[in-house]
């Protein structure tokens, strides 16, 4: 087994062990971090690996969250089907917006994705009669279960989050070392050259975006069922900035970076709120420090200084 694979499996094992080693208060936090990591991993596939700086990923997360939440509460879907609907919703919305947005590049792409996400958020508010808008709605406890497994309870929730995280992590790992993953990196590194090697830029980028949307949709769906609350704020600009922040901090273009960034950022805000109520400044300050002094993030910097084998 390669040391890269061993490292990733070790992280999963460590997270499994953590539930026995850390106090229960942190279980919910870690479950949240793991689900948000899946979201961030999806973002990383688009941004870190393929070079697509989207400012509208909240649209895909929100699509997953609302497809699942509304599916259960309004359309009476079973939990399992609703979760699947959330996963697919993320992918479909990503495909639809990608077909349009990928006709642009660079700054225009950033703005177009931002606008689509904003339109999505406003649409949720507009149809407040069904979505309850900013106030949001709760998913009934009874619906947050598949068979005998009740996801509102501590241990099943943690394990469900871990299961999702593990699958997402290993799929990500396999993807970036595959020919497809290599073509995405190629598109980021030198699009002109990639075109002249026979790669279709639009198709490669769209695939990256759709995979990214599936990840985000899965994370949104899981977030709804595991934590029980669906609200418009999850489709707002904050949830487009957070995955970017996590990825930048942990290391764009690394498989474990998004998780590391989510973990650190979550606890950074948690700890600093013990000293100050200035959460926004912590996020803003972190973004500035990262972009000025550490654009490669933690794992990116480590990889550069000798750990070339780190995927």
């Amino acid at each position: 087994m390669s040391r890269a694979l061993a490292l990733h499996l070790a992280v999963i094992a460590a997270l499994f062990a953590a539930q026995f080693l850390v106090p229960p208060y942190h279980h919910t936090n870690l479950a949240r971090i793991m689900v948000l990591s899946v979201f961030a991993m999806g973002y990383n596939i688009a941004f870190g690996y393929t070079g697509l700086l989207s400012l509208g990923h909240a649209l895909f997360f929100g699509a997953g969250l609302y497809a699942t939440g509304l599916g259960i509460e309004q359309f009476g879907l079973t939990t399992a089907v609703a979760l699947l609907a959330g996963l697919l919703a993320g992918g479909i919305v990503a495909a639809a917006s990608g077909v349009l947005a990928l006709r642009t590049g660079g700054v225009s792409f950033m703005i177009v994705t931002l606008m689509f996400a904003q339109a999505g958020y406003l649409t949720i508010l507009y149809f407040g009669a069904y979505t309850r808008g900013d106030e949001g709605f709760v998913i009934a406890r009874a619906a947050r279960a598949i068979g005998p497994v009740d996801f509102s309870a501590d241990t099943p929730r943690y394990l469900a989050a871990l299961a999702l995280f593990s699958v997402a992590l290993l799929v990500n790992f396999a993807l970036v070392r595959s020919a497809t993953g290599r073509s995405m990196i190629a598109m980021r590194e030198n699009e002109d050259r990639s075109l002249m090697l026979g790669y279709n830029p639009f198709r490669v980028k769209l695939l990256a975006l759709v995979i990214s949307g599936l990840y985000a949709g899965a994370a949104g769906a899981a977030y709804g069922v595991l934590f029980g609350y669906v609200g418009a704020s999850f489709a707002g600009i904050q949830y487009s900035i957070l995955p970017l922040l996590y990825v930048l901090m942990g290391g764009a273009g690394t498989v474990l970076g998004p998780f590391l960034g989510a973990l650190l950022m979550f606890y950074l805000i948690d700890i600093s709120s013990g000293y100050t109520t200035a959460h926004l400044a912590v996020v803003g300050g972190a973004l500035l420090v990262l972009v000025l002094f550490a654009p490669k993030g933690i794992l990116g910097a480590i990889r550069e200084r000798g750990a070339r084998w780190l995927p």
Partner: protein
Amino acid sequence: MEFGPFLLLAIMEGTVMAAVLALTAVGLSLVFGVMRVVNVAHGEFFMLGAVLAWFITQAIPGPPALGFAAALILCPLLVGGIAALADMTILKRLNYDPEATIVATIGLSYIFQQAALSFYGPDARPVLAPFNIRLQLPWFGYSGYKIAVVMAAVILLLAVWLFMTRSRAGLVMRATQADRDTARAFGINVDRVYAAVFALGAGLAAVAAVLIVPIQQAHYLMGHDPLLLSFIVVIIGGLGSLRGTLVAAVVVGLSDGVISVFFSPTLAKILATLLVAMVLVFRPQGLFGARA
């Protein structure tokens, strides 16, 4: 009120919106045109202008007109100064790389919001208008101040236009916009020009906010809508084209005002947001711009 006068009222309200929007959007357009960077914190410069106006008018006793006049002069200068500082310490370091700049300005906008939240608080607070004249039309009364806002905006926009086209500094800015490297070769200190342009853009947003704050109240989140609308205006008008920005500001301001009065403001925003995205996808040069 019957439909006719109601429409007139909506149009007058829309005109006030358009005037303030034009000022804000021109600020954003200048920054993008000359520096080629997207400043996501532009809305926060707007908000800081309003919040600082509240502090200044609170600090100056006597008739409201006095405090307001002081705010009108000091706020753009203060906010412009903050902007210049941000440019010199942060944006310059990033070499104005498009992606890094956007991330950095996002970070800045969070910090500015936090500063307002911490020092000004979460409440919305009013600022008194400098005068209270009321214009009596046959169908309704209208605030004389709002009309003054429109006139002030027109004068300021004219001043900006004269500055850009007739003054030496404006020529230097336009030269830098046309070709940065050639400008440098001609001895123009591009870094200083950028700082000045960034400050000017921020100052315009701030002065627009000072003008609107007696009507709208100052709140630490008030920067979001102006940012979005300015984006919409600048992109539809064509990035880097001042004329396009002005035309688009009038169109967007009027229609947003009118649609908001007759229909839902949320719907108006959804349509405007999607319109921007579609313009960028299908007609990236906007209405007047030469290139995206």
